[in-house]
């Protein structure tokens, strides 16, 4: 602080607290709604004091025994699908990006730069601009309603490849030299030296990509038509498609809390890597 100005200091806290309140308000409303009965919520305005049905609502949501008019699939199953999907996407992206970055940095092979640019260009092809034909490919491979269909098309990652490439370029040449003198082959060097050195970058990327995978919407919307393969983010949307009155908002809100819990926990527990990962991957 450059100077002491009590009024400005107080103003700063006031603005920040207001900001936090506005950011947190939707979460609070969601939580309160998830503890009430469906009828309590329909009485406008709904009470802002938590109700007494917390456990029942969450159990009903997880088991799919709510009275839902639109969709009644068990959220427990959806959470499992989301978890598998997010883990496969995050770990898969890290694995194939590590491998291709290693090849591009540590080998001289024909078309090396072409491969490099081919990966880069995929940045310009987000799934949103090629949904029709990509859907066609996935359906031709028979990958609709499968874990492979949910994950493999999202596993390529230009940003992760670049991040690892940049990082490998900063690794001293002496390490590779020493490994070679010791008679270690390239894979030995990769597994015993490069991968351990990249651990923090991997952790940072993992946080970002786990959230990316968990929060996917458009892609699972296309490739899952079977209720038993819905990730939770899709499931929650299906639950509200019956209109205001037919929606069991208490169950939907319990599902919303469940759907945001895992990524929120990952962000809060791994905040340090998360911030590092964001700044590294995007800049």
């Amino acid at each position: 602080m450059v100077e002491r100005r009590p009024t400005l200091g107080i103003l700063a806290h006031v603005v920040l607290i207001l900001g936090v309140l506005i950011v947190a308000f939707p979460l609070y409303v969601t939580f309160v709604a998830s503890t009430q009965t469906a009828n309590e919520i329909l009485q406008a305005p709904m009470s802002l004091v938590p109700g007494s049905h917390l456990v029942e609502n969450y159990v009903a949501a997880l088991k799919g025994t709510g009275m839902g008019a639109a969709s009644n699939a068990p959220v427990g199953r959806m959470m499992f699908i989301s978890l598998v999907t997010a883990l496969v996407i995050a770990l898969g992206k890290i694995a194939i990006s590590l491998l291709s970055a290693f090849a591009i940095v540590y080998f001289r092979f024909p078309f090396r730069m072409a491969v490099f640019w081919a990966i880069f260009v995929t940045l310009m092809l987000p799934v949103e601009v090629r949904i029709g034909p990509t859907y066609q490919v996935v359906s031709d491979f028979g990958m609709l309603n499968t874990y492979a269909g949910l994950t493999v098309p999202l596993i390529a990652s230009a940003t992760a490849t670049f991040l690892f490439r940049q990082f490998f370029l900063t690794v001293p040449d002496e390490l590779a030299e020493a490994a070679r003198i010791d008679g270690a082959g390239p894979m030995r060097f990769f597994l015993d030296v490069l991968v351990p050195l990249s651990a923090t970058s991997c952790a940072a990327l993992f946080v970002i990509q786990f959230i990316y995978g968990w929060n996917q919407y458009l892609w699972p919307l296309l490739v899952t038509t079977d209720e038993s393969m819905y990730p939770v983010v899709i499931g929650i949307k299906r639950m509200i498609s019956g209109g205001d009155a037919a929606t069991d908002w208490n169950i939907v809100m319990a599902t919303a809390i469940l759907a945001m819990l895992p990524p929120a926990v990952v962000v809060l527990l791994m905040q340090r890597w998360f911030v590092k990962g964001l700044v590294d991957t995007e800049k």
Partner: protein
Amino acid sequence: MASEKRVVFRSAWLPWVLVAPQAAVIGAFFFWPAAQALLQSFQQSDAFGTSTEWVGLENFQRLFADDTYVASFKTTAVFSVLVAGLGLSLSLLLAVFADRVVRGALVYRTLLIWPYAVAPAVAGVLWLFMFAPSIGIVSYALRAFGIDWNHLLNSEHAMTLIVLAAVWKQISYNFLFFLAGLQSIPRSLIEAAAIDGARPWRRFWTIQFPLLSPTTFFLFVINVVYAFFDTFAIVDAATQGGPGKDTAILVYKVYYDGFKALDLGGSAAQSVVLMGIVIALTVIQFRFVEKKVSY
């Protein structure tokens, strides 16, 4: 930084094995479909997909003669400007104050970043619930002020709803970058200005804000990309492009025309237009990144 290694390994086949997984995925799920989209945009097929014929630029001509497509462009423009403008100014305000605060800075950061973890679709559902015309808590409060909120009928209300949800979701991201940017400005600069008698307001506009402009520009591009592509889930969950087509942003229209209306040629032509927009935005971003390196 060196861009080449002096020490390399030698193998004729190993590098190909290493890039094979990445190459297979981008070949099958990026390049092949993108080429297909390009091809389809010049073709017309009947509703059952049994026959296709080459129609040249007809899909594009039809597209730009179509009032709903032009309207969708306008909707997207209004939406992105509002999302980027509001999102950037609110998070800059919060970051400036968070930068001043010494005590509790980490607590504020922790409390402000969690919307990043919320899925856009879930954010859409949360805001939809608060603004539901008959039962929503905010729409109830608005009625007390004489505003009869109904985003199912009123397109301005619908637009407000998706902008609010989109901004809420993006604030944490912008905030982190602004805060990092502010904290990288040397303290000595600000101290020197303070000794010269510059008050906080003046210091912000003459020192901090100009030094923050690269970050602001970077975030502006990222926010426009976000408003264009990542908000599909918010729109689908909160308004489904309605009322009418008044919140159908471009990405939503590609999805709707391709998967609901089954107009493959038209949808593919829209994809190609979108691809052009992404390429433009990526080039702008890359230029900026390069400048940032020498900066």
